[in-house]
């Protein structure tokens, strides 16, 4: 034991020159995401306008707060009709010291429903989220609330979680707790080269029926006028999402090659007081992305969404089918340039079109996470 101590002090002495560097670690991790694009034509249900534009410019700070909490702050700058909006997308604290593999998150954060929703937009393989996500979740649903997650003591991965949100970013209403979600996820490895994850989510939007009728009708019109991409344009009292992801990399070495297949199905019903049981929103997508060399990936995605647009006491059918093909080049971990072609076929959308997009996503600062 004494020998060990001697060694330790010797090590401490030799390490001493680096302490100046380590003091730096008290600063939070800072990361900036630059996202810019050129888009040939306007498309339906899109948050990106034609021409040159900026997408989701993000500034993020994260750090352990103490030995029990960590925190994260993400501010997003977005342009809408040449007005720059500053939005807080994340401002949350999370516990790191809870027993039984429990974790609690509070503040503003991305809901964990579905596969894509809890991911940041810049991690995506395509310029925009699938049409079903854009319509039903406003691309990514985040709100103020509380989350409780539990990892079950099983030999495979099994997580259950529940969230309660203010709901103001889903639809307008008076409920204090407007949105509840529950979510479960399973996953594992099939072999050294293959792994998978499946999830089921349910989102309950209590504000659909929580208001006075007159007010509702009025606000509907109001909402259509300034539909600037934050809350989703299509909602229902119940939203169900099933997701499945499968990844393959030879020997699990995803540096060289990786194939990712993913798909989700979204279904929303009980759209408002006037809705019959036939009035539902539903949509799905399936995507295949193949990273065929360390710096190159190609992908194709097909998605559909069938929507009901509320017009007073009745609904109009809307349909959108979308096919995306993309090629991306990532010089390093921190820089990606993407070329994408999108083909839309629609019923009930005036602005559906085909378009070519060129996008860059660059990050500087802290190293991003490689989530599954």
């Amino acid at each position: 034991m004494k020998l060990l101590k001697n060694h330790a002090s010797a090590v401490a002495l030799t390490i001493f020159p680096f302490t100046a560097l380590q003091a730096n670690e008290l600063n939070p991790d800072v990361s900036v995401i630059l996202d810019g694009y050129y888009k040939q034509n306007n498309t339906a249900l899109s948050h990106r306008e034609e021409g040159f534009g900026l997408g989701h410019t993000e500034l993020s700070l994260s750090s352990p707060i103490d030995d029990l909490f960590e925190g994260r702050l993400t501010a997003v700058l977005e342009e809408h009709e040449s007005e720059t909006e500053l939005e807080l997308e994340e401002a949350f604290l999370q516990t790191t010291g809870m027993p039984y593999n429990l974790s609690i998150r509070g503040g503003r954060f991305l809901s964990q429903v579905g596969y894509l929703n809890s991911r940041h937009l810049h991690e995506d393989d395509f310029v925009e989220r699938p049409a079903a996500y854009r319509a039903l979740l406003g691309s990514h649903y985040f709100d103020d609330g509380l989350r409780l997650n539990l990892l079950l003591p099983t030999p495979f991965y099994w997580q259950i979680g529940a969230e309660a949100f203010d709901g103001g970013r889903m639809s307008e209403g008076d409920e204090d707790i407007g949105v509840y979600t529950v979510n479960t996820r399973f996953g594992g490895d099939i072999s050294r080269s293959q792994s998978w994850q499946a999830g089921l989510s349910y989102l309950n939007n209590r504000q659909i029926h929580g208001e006075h009728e007159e007010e509702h009708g009025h606000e509907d019109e109001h909402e259509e006028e300034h539909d600037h991409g934050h809350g989703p344009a299509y909602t229902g009292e119940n939203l169900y999402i099933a997701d499945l992801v499968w990844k393959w990399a030879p020997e699990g070495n995803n540096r060289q090659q990786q194939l990712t297949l993913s798909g989700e199905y979204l279904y929303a019903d009980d759209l408002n007081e006037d809705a019959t049981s036939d009035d539902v929103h539903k949509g799905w997508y399936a995507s295949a992305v193949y990273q065929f060399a360390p710096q190159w990936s190609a992908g194709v995605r097909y998605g559909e969404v069938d929507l009901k647009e509320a017009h007073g006491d009745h609904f109009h059918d809307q349909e959108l089918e979308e096919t995306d093909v993309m090629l991306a080049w990532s010089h390093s971990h921190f820089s990606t340039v993407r070329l994408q072609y999108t083909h839309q076929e629609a019923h009930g959308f005036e602005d559906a079109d085909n378009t070519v997009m060129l996008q860059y996503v660059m990050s500087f600062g802290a190293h991003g996470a490689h989530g599954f």
Partner: protein
Amino acid sequence: MVSKRLFLTLLIGLASLPAQASLNVFACEPEWADLAGILVPEARMTVATSAYQDPHYIEARPSLIAAMRNADIAVCTGASLEAGWLPSLLRKAANRDIQPGRPGLFFAADQVPLHQPHDHVDRSMGDVHPEGNPHVHLDPDALPRIADALAERLASISPEQATDIQRRLLQWKVRWNLSKAEWRDKADDLKGMTVGVQHSGFHYLLRWLDVDVAFDLEPKPGLPPSASHLNAVLQDPDLPEASAIMVALYQDDRPAHWLSERTHLPVLVLPGTVTGKEAATSLESLLSHLVNELHQLAPKQTVESDG
């Protein structure tokens, strides 16, 4: 009454399960699984990566989250090697024993001084780690220090095994020192030798052996070899002096072979860590294998040292 007793027995059975079971060790890389396995051989070991994988690029996938959830200790390299996936894994596993600053998270690179620390780092330099080169597991002098620290850590987590751990540590160190003497003998023949590399994975061993790096196939650390960089390497005046091009198992060996065709330098595709197979069943055999492979190419081999 019967059901109540049954329930109680079940409850007690469940509660005592973790105590009876041996230690659960989560090793980020195979080298640390080997080292921990020597100190606590009966531990249940999960290895997050293999010699066929680039440890920088792993994803925090579900199976790893589940393994981290059940672990008593995680043994990792540190120095930002796992920066892309370990923090995410720790967050998702929500295992309060394994968090930065807790005894359950052991970083090998924190136990020894690293080579090439940088006062200034920016990303235009490539994937450079400010703490220094993290691939410390191939340094014959660093490993005993890391083993000391790991033994101490394991003993603090599992005090009832402390004497066994200490005994196994001493036995391992004796074997290690004997092997080290052999490597040292062979290193005498390697003096003045230079090699080409792809990334700095073998750096610590080469430095210990006094073998110089003539060129690196990566234009910047972490970037894959590019055509323009390979052409520049081809013009490198140090190139003809080199004895071989070393490539790790997980790397694409085509750039090395491209260069080999033009220079007739032999390509050594070598395990960068313990594979569990043939020549690299343990850290010790891995280092012996690497030293032997280099020794076979030594420019001035003498008859005595061949044995």
